[in-house]
């Protein structure tokens, strides 16, 4: 019996080892190291002191905090837009479609997301550019006299961001809406409610967990997105992940880049935490 216990303990440590190595070496220590680097200030050749200067630089240089604010606000806007676009679709899949078409529509929603984000963004570039499909459609239909450039502006970024996020909204929404019993909706109507009051007082409260987890995931992914804003927004997309990339790779100012990275991580974590608090959900419940 004792031998078995020793075996179990050994087994436990053998199972713990990969997890511990993974989380310590690839997640915990790198994050701590990044934080330390962000607090390091260069005073001379290979001479450094600890100080908040990199963060001061962020607050005193308007370009930096404007980009940060812009990224945050556009991410919120993209999240709200995704919710508005996805909700009717999720509701249709969960409550209106029946039998085979239900499963089919659901799978149709999933398909584009098996395809690389790069390919999807490329598709939007072909659609929106000056010599692109939409521009030609507008000219052909007579709505526009000449070629229209629809790339390289905020609207194009928005279209791309919403597109990239839809799956992460439709799936949790459809899942929670699916568990809403039809009889509750009928009861709402029986009690004299109209479409709007039933939606507001029955459907939306029931779907709240799905709405929150969808919004959290979408916000996080949008904030950290790099491809869509760079390719669809062009040179003036001003996305914060681009700033981080520039500091690291182009300007080789790692200290500044680390400070930016930490600020983005902070914003992302605060929003996730706030979302979970507001909805009284746990991270494990939302992701698992």
């Amino acid at each position, binding site marked *: 019996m004792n031998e078995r216990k020793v075996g179990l303990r050994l087994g436990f440590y*053998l199972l713990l080892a990969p997890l511990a190595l993974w989380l310590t070496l690839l997640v915990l220590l790198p994050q701590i190291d990044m934080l330390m680097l962000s607090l390091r200030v260069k005073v001379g050749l290979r001479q450094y002191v600890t100080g908040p200067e990199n963060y001061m630089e962020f607050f005193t240089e308007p370009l930096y905090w404007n980009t940060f604010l812009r990224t945050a606000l556009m991410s919120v806007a993209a999240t709200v837009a995704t919710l508005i676009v996805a909700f009717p679709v999720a509701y249709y899949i969960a409550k209106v479609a029946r039998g085979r078409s239900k499963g089919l529509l659901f799978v149709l929603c999933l398909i584009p997301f098996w*395809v690389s984000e790069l390919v999807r963004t490329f*598709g939007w570039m072909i659609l929106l550019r000056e*010599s692109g499909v939409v521009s030609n459609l507008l000219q052909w239909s007579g709505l526009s006299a000449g070629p229209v450039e629809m790339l390289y502006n905020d609207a194009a970024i928005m279209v791309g961001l919403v597109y990239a996020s839809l799956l992460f909204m439709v799936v949790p929404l459809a899942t929670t809406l699916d568990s809403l019993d039809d009889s509750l909706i009928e009861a709402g109507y029986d009690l004299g409610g109209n479409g709007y009051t039933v939606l507001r007082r029955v459907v939306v409260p029931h779907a709240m967990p799905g709405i929150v987890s969808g919004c959290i995931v979408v916000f996080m992914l949008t904030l*950290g997105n790099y*491809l869509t804003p760079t390719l669809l927004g062009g040179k003036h997309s001003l996305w914060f992940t681009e700033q981080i990339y520039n500091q690291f790779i182009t300007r080789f100012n790692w200290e500044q880049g680390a400070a930016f*990275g930490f600020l983005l991580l902070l914003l992302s974590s605060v929003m996730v935490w706030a979302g979970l608090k507001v909805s009284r959900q746990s991270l494990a419940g939302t992701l698992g």
Partner: protein
Amino acid sequence: MIPSIPQPRALKLIYMAYIAVFFVYLAAPLIVVTAFSFNDSMFPSLPWNGFTLDWFVNDTAPRTGLFHDGRILESIWISLVVACLVTLLSVAVGTCNAFLFERHDFPFKELLYLAMLAPLVIPGVILGISILVFSNTLINWLDALFGIEVEALRPGLMLVVLGQFSFIATISTLVIAARLRKFDTTLEEAARNLGASHWRAIRTVTLPYLRPAMIGAGIVALLMSFENFNTTLILVGPDAPLTITMFGRLREGSTPVLNAVSLFLMVVSGGLAVLSLFVQRPENESED
């Protein structure tokens, strides 16, 4: 708004139209990417000059097709190698983690579980830069202490593999743990009663039961690695995986060979999607 509640006809039609428009929006980028890979033109844009297979099979510049474009073929190979390594690592570690969290009780289990989920809420760019910073610290540290230079820790494929693994491992853990949770432990006990050792019972009873989840997690890992951009962009060295090569070409403005690559990617991921549905089919009814 469910079928059992009568609605005005006009409202129903508007709703249907919205759903139709939504699916057009969903499909549009993928359709244009596919269509323009067959366009007989130097640019992936209108006008339509007729059908050609040049962008797949032609072997002379400037109309080099996919199957003769050395750089693209090479980066497909690199992506494949990286993806296989990430998949092996993620499934192995994911399986260990699943056993650890489902079969063992230990102090700080909840905390460790949350830490295991954390890589999913850290933006990919930040995972990338933090690992870059930490590996650089390690290089300096090893150099100062032992006077050795570890080239593998410089930006390159090893860091790309580790960076992708750092968050894909979370996903494979979740997938495999979900299935292990549903395992009837009496089956394992029966094997023990019939004289099998602990390890043998796991190997002959539990692991075969987990196989669909392990294959499913493997396919997801393969796909996520192949398509990963954010983390890879930061950690990449001289050997560029496919997404990085494609990104470079996209910014330069490229011939429709990129559409051919995209179509190739779509076919591959579509195939993998079908494969994963096939593998997980029998038990998937009640999940998710």
